[in-house]
């Protein structure tokens, strides 16, 4: 959503209607000024702004949750629906740099509507507005829960609608498990609002500090975590590249296989943790190749049985190297079995069909695809359509048909844009190298007997 002008017209209509509705609610709330606790309101609004300005405590790729709405929920309890709407509307003023006005207005409007509705739900479920008394606990949890539910549901609906209208982002792109995780943490954050409201009677605004300090520490730790993760991924990619430097033609192979594997995994709706695992497994799948003598890897023509045995060993060698890392077991299985074939004629163990671990079936498709669509010394890169045809042809014999069709769907949807590798500074000597991953030029083995 860059600018209002660029939005399709249904999104524009929706936007204007929402702003209008929020405007009406806010006007009504402001008119009730004589019944509102303005000092409380001011502190809560400030709190809301602070939280809103440091968002993404938890983020799924498509959306970020900020804890700000706990302040709005505290306002529901302390000052009622009108107060909640006014507090939430301050989202317009959030000091996040680079946030376009359209987004600010939308956020402010939708939060105001959510706050007002949550306040109504709270009253409807029997909650009393004002400083909670000791006798209110634990009964207050019920109306508070109702308010939270209404807030989250409306917020979710309003946001999903604008995303769908503006960008055509379908629901299918958010895996269900992520969605559940998202909603659970959303409800978890709601308890902060209850804590703030509950403590208001004793230490007023200090309660907000006490509640938010752990949250800011958590945010700091999440920040550290994301920084470490980015750093980790860069490092693992660089090291894998280093393993590949021997062969100019396979430069960037590991990162592309990682990308293609994650595309398939996303298409078949894997959860976040497994998705990360397969990205790492895709990255590291050929690390054992270093144990295979270079002259065997690059040998032109038929291989002796002994040389073929050396090649067959590379998945096991890879496994041996990465075994000390605390990955999911599936990642190890993926690395070890990525050269198994669906009909059982692969290596190292000759597994077939569903015996082959899921990760390995995915990596096999990604591996072959990248091999075919990259230049090799003995041929130029194939166009993507040819490579897809080759995958289709071998589905059921070499590849799992499910993974092949998932990959084709993913390619249709997002296309294939791997990061291009920088050209090497010095020319690399031409080598008549064969690629063991290339399904169009299968390895030929000559029997020595």
């Amino acid at each position, binding site marked *: 959503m860059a600018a209002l002008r660029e939005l399709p017209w249904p999104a524009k209509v929706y936007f204007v209607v929402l702003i209008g509705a929020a405007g009406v609610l806010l006007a009504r709330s402001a008119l009730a000024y004589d019944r509102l606790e303005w000092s409380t309101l001011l502190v809560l609004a400030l709190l809301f702004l602070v939280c809103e300005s440091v968002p993404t405590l938890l983020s799924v790729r498509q959306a970020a949750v900020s804890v700000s709405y706990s302040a709005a929920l505290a306002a529901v309890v302390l000052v009622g629906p009108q107060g909640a709407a006014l507090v939430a509307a301050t989202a317009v003023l959030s000091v996040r740099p680079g946030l376009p006005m359209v987004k600010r207005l939308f956020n402010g409007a939708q939060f105001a509507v959510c706050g007002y509705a949550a306040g109504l739900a709270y009253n409807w479920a029997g909650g009393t507005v004002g400083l909670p008394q000791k006798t209110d606990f*634990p009964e207050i949890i019920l109306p508070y829960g109702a308010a939270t539910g209404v807030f989250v549901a409306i917020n979710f609906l309003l946001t999903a609608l604008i995303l769908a209208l503006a960008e055509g982002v379908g629901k299918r792109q958010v895996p269900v498990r992520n969605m559940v995780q998202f909603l659970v943490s959303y409800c978890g954050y709601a308890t902060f609002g209850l804590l703030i409201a*509950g403590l208001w009677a004793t230490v007023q605004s200090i309660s907000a500090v006490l509640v938010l300090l*752990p949250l800011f520490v958590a945010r700091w730790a999440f920040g550290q975590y994301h920084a*470490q993760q980015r750093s980790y991924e860069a490092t693992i990619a660089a*090291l894998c590249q280093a393993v590949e430097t021997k062969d100019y033609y396979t430069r960037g192979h590991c990162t592309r296989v990682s990308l293609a594997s994650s595309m398939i995994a996303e298409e078949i709706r894997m959860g976040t943790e497994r998705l990360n695992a397969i990205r790492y497994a895709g990255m590291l799948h050929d690390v054992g190749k*270093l144990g295979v003598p270079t002259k065997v890897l690059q040998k032109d023509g038929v291989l002796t049985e002994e040389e073929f045995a050396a090649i067959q060993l590379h998945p096991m060698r890879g496994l041996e190297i990465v075994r000390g890392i605390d990955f999911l077991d599936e990642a190890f299985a993926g690395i070890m079995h990525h050269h198994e074939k669906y009909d059982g004629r692969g290596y190292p163990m000759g597994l077939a069909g569903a015996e082959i671990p899921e990760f390995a079936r995915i990596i096999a498709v990604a591996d072959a695809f990248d091999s075919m669509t990259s230049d090799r010394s003995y041929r130029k890169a194939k166009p993507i359509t040819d490579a897809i045809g080759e995958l289709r042809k071998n589905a059921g014999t070499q590849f799992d048909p499910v993974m092949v069709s998932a990959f084709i769907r993913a390619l249709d949807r997002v296309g294939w844009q791997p990061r291009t590798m920088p050209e090497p500074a010095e020319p690399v000597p031409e080598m008549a190298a064969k690629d063991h991953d290339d399904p169009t030029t299968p390895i030929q083995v000559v029997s020595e007997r």
Partner: protein
Amino acid sequence: MTSRNMDGLDSGQLLLICAAGLLTIAGIAHTAAIGLVGPQVAIGFGALIAAGELARLTMPGNREVAPISTAAALGYALLLDVGGEPATHSALQVVAVMAVGMIAGGLPHLAVGRAPRLDAIARRLFSGSLLAFAFRPLADVLRPEQGQGWWAPLGVMTVLIGLMLAADVVIASMLRAEQVRTAFGVAVRDETRMAAPLGAAVAASGILLALASHSMDMTALLAFAAPLLVTQVAFRKYAGIRATYLQTIRALARVTEVGGYVEPGHSRRVSRLAVAVGRELGMAEPELLELEYAALMHDIGQLSLSDPIPGGATVLTDADQARRIAALGAEVIRETGVLGRVAEIVRRQCDGLEKNPPAASRIIKAANAYDDLVSGSTDRDRAAAALERLRFDGGAEYDQDVVAAMARVIGRLAPVNRL
């Protein structure tokens, strides 16, 4: 199993565990004698402590923490009243509740075969007890009457928790200094850096819990866990990725061995020795981590060579070749875009002293040379001969402070290796 664990403990740890044991006995005996004051509240907090122990986590540097358990213990120690009902439990009862909760929370870990870290548990119990003994006698004075403000108790709580956290850091540093043989001052800095963020979150939650119990009754116990749960999740993820990072570098450093470029185990041995020497020289933990990464990857440049150097002994190859490998390795590491300092350490690992390389590079140079000469053997004569050679090798190649520190480290290890 326990006896084997006991053997591995240092004297400081044993002392702490004994102190905590005595406290536990005193607390439970006292509570058994006069009965549980406010049983419902005690059970509630005890359960929360147990749940927190169940969800403990290991931070970088193999430090075990249990933020939820600690916060609950602090909250119970600082409790003034529950829903208007004064909380009059004694400090010894706090100790008893903490001990029982910790033991109960530790049992499931034991059941699945995770041995308890007695020293870490003892430290949590001991620090919690310190706060309880300091605050409980004041509880009656501080409890505000109807209509009185909460500012005075809030101030006292904050000051006492601050003091307790400081004491906890000092204890942790003493244990650390003894355990990994680093200087006490360095350990204090490391522990403070590690403990500050989590300590702030735990302290705020502890106070929150004590205050919330006043206005929210026992609902506070439920509601309070949420902020800390988020913190806990964040730290768990952070600790997880840190551990995976190190494991991955360790694993990928081995590709040079699998490829036949260096002897098996070389990078691991060099990194262990380098870290031990770095510690001996008083390096702080962030520097040690960079040193470890650099030491693990110091030979990664060999991957760019088309033919492995026989045996991979870079101390015996000519200086230009070694320098080229170092430069190539640094280039690989620089590609990551994040490990710039590590790349610099690797690049300068061959520099003579006249070029004034960073301390980490000097350590790696000496450790690498030592391992090339000794290559994993535990023979003392061979070790002595190798050290001798580093000492008298012109004096312009190896930093003599590093060599002296290395001699001390190896001297300490030698008796262990002989067994």
